[in-house]
C-alpha cells in the first residue's frame, strides 16, 4: 500500500476514534472531569490544607500535576482498551484486517485515538485545576514531550490489554488491579522522599513515578528523580511497548485464528 493511501487509512481510523470519543462525551469526557474536581476539593482543599507544603510548594500546587497526569494515563489507557476490544467483540476489527491497511497503521490509528482522548481530558482537567491552584509552566518542551510519551505509552498498554482480552471482565482487571495501584503509589499524592528508604527503593521500580515526576518538573521545576534518565527510560519503554504491540498484530494474536 502506497504511503499516500496509508495516510488515508490512518486518518480514517483516527477520525472514527475522534467521532467515537465525541459521540459518547458524557461517558468519555465528563466523568474524569468530575472525579478530578473531587480530588482537587478533597485532597487539595480539605485535607491538603492541613498537610502543609510539599516539595517546596503548598500541597494543592504539588498535587495538581500528578492528578493531571493520572487523568491522562487513565483515559489514554481506557480509550484504547475499550475501543479496540469493542472492535474485536463486534468483529468490526475485521473490516480493517481484511483491507490492505498495514498493521503499523492500524496500531498508529488506535494509538492516536487514545492520545486524543488523553489530551482532551488532560486539557479539561488542567483548565479545572486553575480554579484551585495557580499553575506556571517551568519547561514547556518537557511538559509537552512527557504528556505525549505517557499518553502514547498507556494507549499502547490499552491495545495490548485488548488484544489479550477474551471478555469485558478482562479489560477491567489490569486497570483495577495494576494501573490504579501503580498510579496511586507513583508519587501523584506525595513526594517519595517522605517514604522510608526501603519503600523509596521499591517506588523506583514503578514507571509511573518517572512520568509523574518529569511532568511535575515541567510544571513546577521540582522532581524526585533525574529528568534525563527518566526521559530516556520512558522513551525506551515506549519503543519496546510499540514493538511488542506490532509483533502481536503481525502474529495476529487473538485476532486471526
Amino acid at each position: 500500500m502506497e504511503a499516500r493511501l496509508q495516510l488515508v487509512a490512518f486518518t480514517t481510523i483516527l477520525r472514527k476514534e475522534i467521532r467515537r470519543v465525541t459521540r459518547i462525551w458524557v461517558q468519555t469526557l465528563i466523568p474524569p472531569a468530575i472525579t478530578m474536581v473531587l480530588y482537587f476539593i478533597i485532597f487539595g482543599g480539605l485535607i491538603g490544607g492541613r498537610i502543609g507544603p510539599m516539595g517546596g510548594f503548598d500541597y494543592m500546587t504539588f498535587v495538581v500535576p500528578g492528578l493531571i497526569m493520572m487523568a491522562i494515563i487513565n483515559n489514554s489507557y481506557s480509550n484504547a482498551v475499550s475501543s479496540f476490544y469493542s472492535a474485536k467483540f463486534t468483529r468490526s476489527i475485521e473490516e480493517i484486517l481484511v483491507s490492505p491497511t498495514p498493521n503499523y497503521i492500524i496500531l498508529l490509528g488506535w494509538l492516536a485515538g487514545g492520545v486524543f482522548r488523553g489530551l482532551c481530558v488532560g486539557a479539561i482537567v488542567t483548565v479545572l485545576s486553575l480554579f484551585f491552584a495557580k499553575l506556571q509552566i517551568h519547561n514547556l518542551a518537557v511538559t509537552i514531550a512527557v504528556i505525549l510519551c505517557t499518553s502514547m505509552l498507556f494507549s499502547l498498554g490499552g491495545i495490548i490489554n485488548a488484544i489479550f482480552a477474551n471478555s469485558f471482565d478482562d479489560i477491567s482487571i489490569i486497570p483495577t488491579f495494576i494501573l490504579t495501584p501503580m498510579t496511586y503509589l507513583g508519587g501523584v499524592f506525595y513526594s517519595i522522599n517522605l517514604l522510608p528508604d526501603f519503600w523509596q527503593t521499591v517506588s523506583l521500580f514503578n514507571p509511573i513515578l518517572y512520568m509523574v515526576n518529569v511532568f511535575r518538573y515541567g510544571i513546577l521545576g521540582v522532581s524526585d528523580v533525574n529528568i534525563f534518565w527518566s526521559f530516556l527510560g520512558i522513551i525506551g519503554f515506549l519503543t519496546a511497548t510499540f514493538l511488542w504491540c506490532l509483533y502481536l498484530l503481525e502474529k495476529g494474536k487473538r485476532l486471526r485464528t
Partner: protein
Amino acid sequence: MSLPLQIQGLKKTYSNGFEALKGIDLEVKAGDFFALLGPNGAGKSTTIGIISSLVKKTAGKVEIFGVDIDKDFSKAKAGLGVVPQEFNFNLFENVQDIVTNQAGYYGLPKKTAMERAEKYLKKLGLWDKRNGQARGLSGGMKRRLMIAKALVHEPRLLILDEPTAGVDIELRRSMWAFLNEINQAGTTIILTTHYLEEAEQLCRNVAIINEGLIIENTSVKNLLKTLNKEVFVLDLKESIEHLPVVEGYDLKKRDDSSLEVEIEKGQSMNDLFLQLDRHGLQVVSMRNKVNRLEELFVSLVSKDKEAS
C-alpha cells in the same frame, strides 16, 4: 492473464488439532460466478478466512490475481472484497460512515469514498437510512450493508459467505439480480450458500467441499447432467384411501391427495399417467420434490462419507 484466485495444496489445522482443510486445489477464472458448496464444518469459511487473511494457513499457496498472499498480502487484498457470514460492523455507527470508513481502509480519498458510498447505498436501497445507526436496520438491510461495504473499493473479486442466509425470498431474489448485474459488469464472484437453488440459479461453476477436501469441481451444467434420479410430487384431483398398484414405478403416497414418484434418467412418464388414468386418478399438477442440485449434493456428500 492471471487468475482471480488460485489455490494449491491448502491445509489448515487449528490449534485444537482439528484439520479443517486437508489440501485443497481450486482455480477460479476471471468473470466467473463460482459456488463453493459444502455441509456445515466442511471448510468453506476456513477457505474464505485464509483468502481474506483472517485465518492463518498451515500449508499451501494462495494467489489472488497472481499475487502470492505470502509475498504481498497487502497488494493481493486491494482487489478483493469479502462479505462474511456474520455482521462485522459497529452497530452504533451510522450507515454512511460504516461504508466510507471501509473505503478509507483501502486508501480511497474522502470525496471518492462519499461518491461510492452514495452509489452503492442507493443501488442496495439503503440511501434513505444513511444517517441512522446500523442497529436500526432490519436483518435484510444489514446484509445489504455488508455487500455495500465490500463493494465500495470496487474489487475485481468478490467473495460472499452465505449472503442471503435469513433473508426473505423477495429480498433474496433482488440480491440475486444485483449480484448478476455486478458479475456481468466484470466482477468475479465466489459464493458459498446453503440455498442450493441459489447456486443453480446464479453460478456457472461449482466446487463441493466436504471434510476439508474438494470432492467435485465442475460446471453446474455438467454436475446436473450426472443426476440420474428425480423425485416428483403428483397432486391428485380427488383424494385416495390406498396407494394404487402401478408397475415399473416406485410410487409412494404422500397424503390423501398427492403421490410421490422416483423417475430415473431417460425413463418415460407416459406409462405412469396411463396406469394412473386406469385407476381413475387425475393428476392436476406436478413438481420436483427437492431442488435438483440439492439431491445431487446430498448424494455426493454421502458417497464421500461412505468412501472414507
